């Protein structure tokens, strides 16, 4: 029953934690649903009280965790605008981009315990939406690769303990993108939007 503001570092960390956990789950789920990796490496886990798929491959998990670890301070300060999961074809041209647009209201407050369960419900809805995104997207060509891109505002740079590079133009630019919105959520602590940019011709 506390009212905290953004200036409260603890609170910023809480929000960043929640978002990073969610992004991790969402990324694993995207990898599963879009068949980026063989489904044998995934196992069922529980998050937000529903079953989700998570990979067991240690290096993949480590990559995702390291990236999110670097993003976390950016999210705390509200510097990361978008986190994008880019699925590329063999020529390293983006085929699909799952864009998570994140923004946090400048003056946050949590006023009750029900906030977090409300947020959990919203995040659960995101997870569900990702699970059924197959219906609105064309299937990808085989042999895909996948990268995580983070769009950050210019004033800050991510931590140097995990190698970051500026993304190549060809990896960012997509030809003839189609925009498919998936889900939006608004809550007291964060506003998030998920949409998919899909290349019109995938083969």
């Amino acid at each position, binding site marked *: 029953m506390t009212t905290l503001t953004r200036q409260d570092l603890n609170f910023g960390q809480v929000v960043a934690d929640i978002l990073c956990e969610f992004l991790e789950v969402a990324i694993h789920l995207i990898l599963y649903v879009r068949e980026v990796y063989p489904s044998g490496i995934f196992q069922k886990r*529980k998050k937000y009280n529903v079953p989700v798929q998570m990979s067991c491959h240690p290096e993949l998990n480590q990559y995702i965790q390291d990236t999110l670890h670097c993003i976390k301070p950016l999210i705390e300060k509200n510097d990361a605008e978008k986190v994008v999961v880019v699925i590329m074809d063999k020529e390293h041209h983006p085929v699909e981009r799952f864009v998570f647009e994140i923004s946090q209201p400048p003056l946050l407050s949590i006023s009750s315990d029900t906030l977090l369960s409300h947020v959990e419900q919203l995040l659960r809805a995101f997870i569900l939406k990702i699970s*059924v995104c197959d219906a609105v997207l064309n299937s990808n060509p085989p042999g895909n690769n996948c990268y995580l891109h983070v769009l950050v505002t210019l004033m800050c740079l991510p931590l140097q303990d995990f190698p970051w590079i500026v993304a190549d133009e060809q990896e960012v630019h997509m030809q003839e993108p189609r925009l498919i919105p998936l889900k939006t959520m608004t809550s007291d602590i964060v506003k998030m939007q998920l949409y998919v940019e899909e290349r019109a011709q995938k083969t």
Partner: protein
Amino acid sequence: MDELYLDNIDEYVNDHNKIVTYKWLSLTLGVHVNTAKQMLYHYLDHKRKESSAQLHATYLVSGKFVDNGQTSHKVSVVREDQLEDFKAKMSLVVSVHVYSVQRALLRDSGPLYAVDYDAVKDNLKNCSRYSAIHCASAVPMSSVELQQAREVQQAPTPEAENKKAGMNGDTSPVLKSSAKPPKGIMGMFANKSAPKSQDNTKEMKPEKKEDIEAPKSKPIAKANPVANFFGTQTLKKPEKPVKEEEAPQSSSRAAQQHERSKPEEKQETVAPVEPQIDTKKDSRSKTKRLEDSDGEEEKMEKKKRRRIKKPEPDSSDEDVIPDSPQPVVTREPSSPSPKKEVEPDRHSHPSSSEMKIRKRRQVMKSHTFLDDDGCMVTEKGYVSESYSESEDDFKPSKQASRDPIKAKPSSSKEDEKKTQKKASANSNKGAKQASIMGFFQKK
């Protein structure tokens, strides 16, 4: 019945791209579940005739299934493409109905559960209002009654549950209900505050019993595990006669160390009143591996008390971590590294904690190492270990359990626990391919 519902369903499926399950539909539209099932069927039929946008459906099939001479009743949710195959395998199909309709081809059953979860949660008080399963005496208890029930927490409930669990235990190798186990298993792991499922009440009651019994642990005769029952449960009169009944069975078990628990449990179902320990075991029998329950009965009493400090080595961290869950889900080999970390803690405890009795016993331990090929190999062997009973088990083991788990918010902790459990489950199934799965279980 007017045709408006077709448009409704169409809107949900096509416009909102939702997964429409019959339960969700019945709660949303306020109709009986059977009506909802028929609505879905008609909708599917209608759309298929029009051959418009592609729709996928899942079906719930329920019927008799014969496996190796054992007949069981199987309830499964299957995809449409597997429906005919599945029906052909069953000896008698009792019911088939549409479970859900959606545009996307679902790769696994997770989203189906997620869909119903929110719908049921919103209608928690009356989620069975439209249900086809009714029991006139099933009314929610008032808080006073709830309190009383918790304090009393007796044989009658575990008895009824045990009978049911016993029956399930008979058929558990065959029983495959994708709709039910997620709720059952997840119900066991859900927080106490989480609503639903009888499994939760089952869990809560054994928990309470355990809390009460642990402080009452007294020095126990070494040789006879049966005496354990008598020694500690003196307060529970109704259970005494049961223990006596159990005694002949238990002693026969004690004589044969490696006898499987399952056939014994079947014998137990004959006894009308069962101790709560057996209840837990029976409910576990659904999911646990047979081999790992070796010698469990004889050590059950000691183990239960000791479980918090030093669980059966095969049953992994799930036992150590929270005091609440019973080692229900498992007697499966745990993931190696957390176990290793927990073991040193366990070993240090007997020396530091208050000792009432020191004993040595043969304990099956898993030993993990890298073999010549660089593969992680886990071997199980008996190791002579000294242990003692103590009431200080609780805290030290809790700390031990925290070690392997990284410092992350509690929801991540649940995930880790789940990973370890699931990792164990996987390594179980992959026992024949230890090296392949071993790679993935490294974490």
